[in-house]
């Protein structure tokens, strides 16, 4: 669906689909995982057909998320290389958070904050996957010390990643005109010029 022919294409349909698979599996994993982490969240298991079903399904969703995130990683890692301009952006990130983005250095398709998010998520995904295999008793029987370390790492990386995703989602809500990129793949020229001027110049030739 093209809303305005002058809108800029930010994501291909297959990239959006891939992101949605990661997003849906992440939400389901977070809801079921939190239920096993703290009793306050235990009632969330009812969303999965009861606690035993939540326990059965959770690791398979984990495999789905790991594989689909690998897809995103391969697609986007070359766009997330840190540059000096990113470091400058990160040094000024406080101004940005304060709602004062006029002096921010020019950014390409992704800004320094998004790149930090990308790499932090990649590391968390790796930790979650490896530690998750250690504690997946239905299929594996690792040494007890590895299982215990796996449990700690899985809980810590999981809680940290839920925090990261909250920030990720909030940033998309806060910066108006962002969420449509996830739905339709396009953004307005104004959005691109304001937030990602380097990318704006690159795709418009201006």
């Amino acid at each position, binding site marked *: 669906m093209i809303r305005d022919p*002058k809108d800029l294409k930010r994501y291909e349909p297959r990239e959006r689909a891939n992101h949605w698979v990661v997003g849906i599996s992440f939400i389901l994993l977070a809801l079921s995982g939190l239920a096993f982490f703290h*009793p306050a969240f*235990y009632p969330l298991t009812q969303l999965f057909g009861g606690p035993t079903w939540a326990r059965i399904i959770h690791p398979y969703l984990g495999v789905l998320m790991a594989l689909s995130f690998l897809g995103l990683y391969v697609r986007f890692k070359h766009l997330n290389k840190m540059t000096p301009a990113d470091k400058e952006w990160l040094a000024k990130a406080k101004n940005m958070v304060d709602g004062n983005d006029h002096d921010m250095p020019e950014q390409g398709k992704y800004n320094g904050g998004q790149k930090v998010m990308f790499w932090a998520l990649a590391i968390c995904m790796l930790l979650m996957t490896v530690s998750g295999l250690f504690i997946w008793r239905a299929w594996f029987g690792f040494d007890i010390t590895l299982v215990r370390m796996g449990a*700690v790492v899985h809980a810590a990386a999981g809680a940290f990643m839920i925090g990261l995703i909250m920030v990720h989602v909030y940033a998309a809500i*806060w*910066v108006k005109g962002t969420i449509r990129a996830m739905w339709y793949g396009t953004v307005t*020229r104004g959005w691109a010029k*304001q937030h990602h001027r380097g990318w704006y110049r690159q795709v418009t030739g201006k």
Partner: protein
Amino acid sequence: MALQSLDIKQRSATTTPSTQVRETIEIAKLIDVSACIGCKACQVACSEWNDIRDEVGNCHGVYDNPMDLTAKSWTVMRFTEVEQNNKLEWLIRKDGCMHCADPGCLKACPAPGAIIQYSNGIVDFHQENCIGCGYCVTGCPFDVPRISKEDSKAYKCSLCSDRVAVNQAPACVKACPTGAIQFGSKEDMKDYAAKRVTDLKERGYDQAGLYDPQGVGGTHVMYVLHHADKPDLYAGLPANPSISPLVSLWKGFAKPLATLALAGVALGSLFHYVTKGPNEVSKEIEDEIEKEDAK
């Protein structure tokens, strides 16, 4: 269960206190390793009373049979041959749940009410609430719980909580032909153990003693050992068992801390939006784009 529910000291994955008003006596099972003849009557009695029949396995060339605890063998005799004081000794230890005062299984369990600690000290698994995650295995310092391959539920010795509830001794105690397994109040069992230890010391076992490890707050299954200084001789009985620091970290302060941190991020985001407002494309840039279009 109405009255029995008064006797619950702790239940898994529950953050409010369990019933505290009624106090019952702390009980204990005492296993006098020095009086055990390895007949396995306790194994059979356990299987009989609890109506569980493990698969008939194979002979592995040793007396241990089955070779390990399973979801259907809640107690096994472990046989070890050691040389102590230039003598061959045949050590036989009845292995099973120790019913810790500070149970690692209960601490790790995420399912409310799947693990119950009664005020008499018995740590019981309520399989109808078990979800089969195996966290109890991760939490146990003695490697006792087993997940059934048939139903993915965790099983272990219940210390015959059903018998104890009606003032009966556990089945294994009843069956033991030598009196090597005693049952009673924990205080009485300690007194009985002290007598046995004195006797053993008189017979040359200088290091005889009671095994009631304080690292897990003491246990409700205790051993009289001839070599209490070396519990490891008895098929790897841990000398100083305690809940692994990794488990304490995972199910201890990490739980409330991470929960609060996540709530902080969520509320922080909300209040950031409310106080700083949305980040919209500036009027200036919109005008620039409009000008471009007008050209």
